């Protein structure tokens, strides 16, 4: 599953390096390139040290939540929401569970737990669509809705952004949490309104 991501990065990274060096030759900034490369690598290490602290702390906290059964408890309460978002999805279909896990993991910022659940949900939705129409290779409404929801990224605490801000000298790194929650709700709401309209058309 990492293949596409790696390919994209491969293109992005190489074109950044090539474009940067070629452009510096044209503009006569080429003497700054070696300093930039060395400084950036030093900085990357310093940043990762800050990240180690913040991430270890947050993941530790989330592990407590998981071990205490908080994630499971939240899943139970999500059922009506899932039914509203995916009205055609049968109530006891296995996709329900994966979708719920994916949404909750995203909200809590548990990216590593969100992706596997999300991919399992897609597999289940693909099976469901096959049993309905036996048409392969076309996204079902549920798949479209699920991906829009996923991409609109409902996230409660942007841990990474807070860590970066603290590394780069913010007076109050967490001050953006409130604004972040409002913005993420607006983007998710926009996504939901759109796919609800499309869903009705069918």
């Amino acid at each position, binding site marked *: 599953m990492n293949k596409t991501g790696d390919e994209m990065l491969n293109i992005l990274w190489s074109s*950044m390096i090539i474009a940067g060096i070629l452009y510096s030759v044209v503009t006569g900034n080429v003497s700054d390139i070696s300093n930039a490369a060395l400084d950036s690598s030093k900085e990357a290490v310093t*940043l990762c040290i800050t990240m180690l602290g913040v991430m270890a702390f947050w993941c530790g906290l989330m592990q407590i939540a998981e071990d205490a059964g908080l994630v499971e408890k939240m899943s139970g309460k999500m059922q009506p929401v899932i039914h509203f978002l995916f009205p055609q999805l049968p109530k006891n279909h296995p996709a329900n569970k994966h979708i719920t896990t994916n949404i909750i993991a995203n909200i809590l910022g548990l990216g590593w737990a969100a992706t596997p659940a999300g991919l399992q949900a897609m597999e289940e939705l693909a099976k469901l669509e096959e049993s309905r129409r036996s048409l392969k290779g076309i996204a079902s409404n549920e798949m479209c809705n699920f991906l*829009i929801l996923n991409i609109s*990224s409902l996230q409660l605490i942007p841990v990474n952004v807070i860590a*970066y801000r603290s590394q780069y000298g913010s007076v109050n790194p967490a001050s953006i949490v409130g604004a*972040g929650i409002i913005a993420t709700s607006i983007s998710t709401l926009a996504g939901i309104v759109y796919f609800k309209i499309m869903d009705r058309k069918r």
Partner: protein
Amino acid sequence: MRLFLFCSDMIIPVIILGIVCYGVTQHVDVYESFIKGANSGFQTVIKIMPTMLALMIAVGILRASGLLEAIGMRIGSMTDHIGFPGELVPLTVVKMFSSSAATGLLLDLYKEYGTDSRIGLIASISMACTETIFYTMSVYFMTAKVRKSRYTLPGALIATFAGIAASVVLAGMF
């Protein structure tokens, strides 16, 4: 506005308190769980370190060459009319493809303009509310063996732009 920032300050302490208390009432070995999770968080960061290094070097080179600035200024003269700083355009576009490459650009903006400047704030908020559209779509649809994605992309773009617009407005309130 003060209330808004106060709530922002309260969210994290409340979450910490809530989770620890809930763990204790459920008779979970809270300390043990924390160490276990912290360990996995540590591993995650170690794993992304080389990626981070590679991308920060690439962005460093782009910045030193002056290309980043040139692109930002060129596009900025167009986007400034709608109140969106051109400096943020490269970040917004790259974020649709790769989250780690976007991080490199985000840090560059922090260095250049400061984390609490208007640009720094818009960047922070918009990074917190957007996802890598094209990356996510290709991975998820590949898993489901889907080639026609129908209305997914327009929906994802609408959600993303709504989030970015909200970020611009919200950053203005600080």
